[in-house]
């Protein structure tokens, strides 16, 4: 019976609201936009932060990354052919390995501007010369074959490992294992291929967009065949660069030591380099900064969404006050027939909650649809967490109750005789 009364009250509320369809619909809109903005903003915020975190994690939160950076152009003379020498050196590598405590290993990388060919097929990937530790340090996974070994490094053998994308382009119809590719002017045996990097939530179609693919050879082999000079063709001029190492991945023993290792590297590099021709990237710091940004982002978005919900709530209150006045006589009749104050309160509260929850449900639907649209048209990642719609639903119901209380209270405390006289 009690449940019957509840159902009846809700049904009556809906019926009363339907007496003024347009008014009820417009009131609902207020909540609808408030709730949908909450859900959509949370989804976009979550997506942006998930994207940032993933990028950072890919760099490895246990790593400190040192990179060579070309100093500003005007620092060097303007000639047709010039040699610019900058960046990390093998001495830096040795110093980090030997004198920075808490470091497990350091993986050096050189990037060679070479073309890679298989017969007619040619690609321009990042040709990376590195040490056997690279694979473990970055968590990359082999697809076929094997990785570059210590022996390859010692004997400077002409072997290479192809990234997924390069393997697919150069050998679209067969396995590249055991085949030969031409890097620059020399032939290399393909001993293995890598799986693509894991990119969560991306469709495979855009996997090739940011990376032109990668080919790996050992650092020693790279040095033997390509030397220290890098020749870059630029509009009208040839540019020679001398860079010993492009990057060093410094893997730290324990997470807690990351800030100390980073500081030690910074100090060491500052001492050894006259120019700022390097950068120190600490993924852990970036992660923390990303968390902070996300927090600020959430506060800003939350305030905006909160304000729109407040506006929606005030809309409900406004309409309900008008409704109570308009239905004064009905209230009088109900009171004369035995309705207690709480019956009147409940009746009007239920109407408010029906309005706000109705708006809330539609708002959740819209709030989930907006991120889908954003993902599709703006190419941004969004994440609708399961809590967001629940939160929005609870908020919308709460708004109905909070902003309905006063009008309902007013209705319940009218004098029945006066109310009955109302025209």
């Amino acid at each position, binding site marked *: *019976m009690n449940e019957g*009364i509840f159902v*009846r009250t809700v049904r*009556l509320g809906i*019926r*009363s609201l339907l*007496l003024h369809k347009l008014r009820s619909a417009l009131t609902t809109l207020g909540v609808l936009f408030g709730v949908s903005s909450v859900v959509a903003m949370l989804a976009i915020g979550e997506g942006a932060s998930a994207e940032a975190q993933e990028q950072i994690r890919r760099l490895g939160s246990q790593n400190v990354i040192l990179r060579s950076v070309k100093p500003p152009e005007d620092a060097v003379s303007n000639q047709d052919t010039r040699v610019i020498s900058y960046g990390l050196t093998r001495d830096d590598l040795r110093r980090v390995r030997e004198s920075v405590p808490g470091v497990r290993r350091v993986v050096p990388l050189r990037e060679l501007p070479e073309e890679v060919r298989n017969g007619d097929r040619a690609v321009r990937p990042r040709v990376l010369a590195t040490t056997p530790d690279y694979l473990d340090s970055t968590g990359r996974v082999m697809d076929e074959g094997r990785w570059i070994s210590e022996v390859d490094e010692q004997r400077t053998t002409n072997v290479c490992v192809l990234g997924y994308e390069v393997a697919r382009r150069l050998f679209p119809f067969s396995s590249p294992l055991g085949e030969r590719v031409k890097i620059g002017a020399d032939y290399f045996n393909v001993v293995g291929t890598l799986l693509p990097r894991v990119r969560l939530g991306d469709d495979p179609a855009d996997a090739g967009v940011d990376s032109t693919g990668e080919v790996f050879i050992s650092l020693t082999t790279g040095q033997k065949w390509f030397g220290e000079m890098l020749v870059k063709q630029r509009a009208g001029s040839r540019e020679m660069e001398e860079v010993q190492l492009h990057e060093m991945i410094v893997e730290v023993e324990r997470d807690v030591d990351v800030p100390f290792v980073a500081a030690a590297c910074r100090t060491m590099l500052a001492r050894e380099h006259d120019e700022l021709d390097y950068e120190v990237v600490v993924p852990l710091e970036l992660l923390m900064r990303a968390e902070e940004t996300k927090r600020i982002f959430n506060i800003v978005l939350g305030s905006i969404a909160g304000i729109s919900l407040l506006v929606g709530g005030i809309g409900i209150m406004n309409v309900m006050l008008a409704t109570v006045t308009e239905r004064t*006589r*009905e209230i*009088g*009749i*109900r*009171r*004369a*027939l*035995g*309705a*207690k*104050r*709480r*019956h009147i309160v409940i009746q009007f509260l239920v109407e408010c909650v029906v309005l706000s929850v109705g708006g809330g449900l539609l708002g959740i639907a819209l709030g989930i649809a907006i991120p889908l649209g954003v993902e599709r048209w703006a190419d941004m990642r969004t994440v609708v967490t399961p809590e967001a719609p629940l939160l929005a639903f609870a908020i919308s119901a709460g708004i109905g109750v909070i902003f309905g209380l006063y009008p309902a209270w007013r209705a319940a405390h009218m004098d*029945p*005789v006066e109310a*009955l006289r109302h025209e």
Partner: protein
Amino acid sequence: MSRPVAQLQDIRRVYRMGSNEVVALDDFSFSFGRGEYWAIMGSSGSGKSTLLNILGCIDRATSGSYKVDGEETSELDDDDLSELRSRRIGFIFQSYNLIQQLNVLENIQVPLFYQDDPPPDGHERALALAERVGLGGRLDHRPRELSGGQQQRVAIARALINDPALILADEATGNLDSKTAEEILALFDELHGEGKSILLVTHEPDVGERAENVLRLRDGRIDSVDEGQRAGA
């Protein structure tokens, strides 16, 4: 006189408007017997509606004692008074006062809806009453789809749903043409015949004559009491 169904003792009802005071009922004492049919008459402003509102427990006397069915009301709080209305009072208004969102059958059941412990057979009772007032074929009509007379019949059925101790009607025929009014009055006669206690406020002498007794008011006091008109006739 049988045991009184409504007993008023030294009832005063004073309306305060700023420094002005209007005394609508002045030391009013009277008892209405169970099963009696009274017409309450008097000139405009004599306090008829005020009296009826106090009898119906939607208004409180400024001072004095009022017992419904033997129960003292002056000490009851708002909830208790509401419960009392939903159980023992049947109200019929001049302007019908049906609830527009509800159909005939639902309107008839409204008082039960507000009882703390409603009877399980409310639906059947409502059906029977609708049948009785001649609206068995219009159960799912909304009030605006009914004529004035039909609406007043629904209101009468609604007043009967809780089997009240007291039926109160304020100008119940005031908005109706004489033929329809006659039908409604016939219904009251019938209810009286079944032993219901009815108090009917009216301006019209011929309506007053239908009642068994007539109480006349003037300036918030009793002007005259005619008992047993019909019994004597």
